[in-house]
């Protein structure tokens, strides 16, 4: 019996990451960061902009996501997202473009509080990436 569980990250165009034997995954769930360990009860939630941390015994991977859905069931974690990239090979220009876009969006007047919060959060996360 293996120690970890399986993680599948898919985006509409392809399967982004599939990995067995992951010991812990931290996802930026809608109501706060959520750490998932083996034998978690089945859960469905969705994501806000943030960083997914995939931790296995040997290494740790970080990915940036903007939105998505997580489902955990039978020791398989599925993450569906349309916007994800690996922080390690993040394209600096791409990140700064995204920040600009989000800031432009923030300057619009017709935002509701929830949207404003999400955008602010997104800018914050992206900035922290671009500094590293």
């Amino acid at each position, binding site marked *: 019996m293996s120690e970890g569980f399986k993680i599948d990250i898919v985006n*509409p165009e392809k399967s982004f990451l599939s990995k067995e034997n992951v010991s812990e995954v931290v996802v930026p769930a*809608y109501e706060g960061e959520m750490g998932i360990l083996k034998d978690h009860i089945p859960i469905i*939630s*969705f994501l806000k902009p943030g960083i997914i941390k995939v931790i296995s015994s040997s290494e740790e991977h970080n990915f940036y996501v903007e939105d998505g*859905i997580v489902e955990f069931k039978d020791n398989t974690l599925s993450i569906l997202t349309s916007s994800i990239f690996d922080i390690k090979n993040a394209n600096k220009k791409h990140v700064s473009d995204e920040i600009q876009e989000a800031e432009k969006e923030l300057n619009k007047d017709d935002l509701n509080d929830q949207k404003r919060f999400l955008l602010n959060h997104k800018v914050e996360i992206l900035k922290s990436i671009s500094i590293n």
Partner: protein
Amino acid sequence: MASLDDLKKRISSVKSTQKITKAMKMVAAAKLRRAQESAERGRPYSEKMNNIILNLSSGVSDKENAPKLLSGTGDDKVHLCVVLTADRGLCGGFNSNIIKKAKSYFQKISDTGKTLKIITVGSKGYDQLKRLYQDKIIENISFKESKNANYFDADKVGKIIIEKFENNEFDVCTIFYNQFKNVITQIPQEQQIIPLKTEEKDNKSSEENYEFEPDEDEILGNLLPKNISTQIFKAMLENSASEQGSRMSAMDNATRNAGEMVDKLTIEYNRSRQAAITKELIEIISGAESL
């Protein structure tokens, strides 16, 4: 009978046509492989999405208050049809098969006295439908600039549909596309996406007790619009694989037909050349005899 020169010209023109169709076939074959791969890679996403929605919708206890995208508006007076076709021709029956399928559906709608609205995606569908249904087409979207089907484009279409739904412009939405089975067979499909038709597979999945964060309704409300884009993206992927497959087999046929034509024309050319030589010989011989 055509003169030798004419035949020669025709042979060379058929040969150059054959060259073109052959090249198009090669290009289509290469593109087909890529399109097929991306269709296969896209499958897990839509499958997983479907599964989650299935699990969620079986968990929705209060059917009355379920999101409208799932349960419908309770009416079916106005039908929106999204017809997905290619932007290019020369691909056999690909475009006309979708159009045919869509037209028979349109007929059914107007026969029962319901209102019909059409969105065409891809310029070929618009070209073929605008003659008969000009007043029904409310939007014409084309992605000529994008090389491959991508999610960004599908999302655009999805957002347009959802916006129209939220403005109560229609009650039922159906999409039309070609499903890729293999290179020679593509099946035109109609698929209803609003309200969502969930096939109850087995009850095993629905017995699973999920924890939801936040609650089901909110997740469903967030998920269903995404599902629309996903379904459209799936249709676009299937469509692009079908288009290339259809073009490949059409161009294969054209190449073969051109080859047959060249053979026939060459035989005719040789025959008339021989006939001309024989005629000349007879003339010389009979001229010599008369001396």
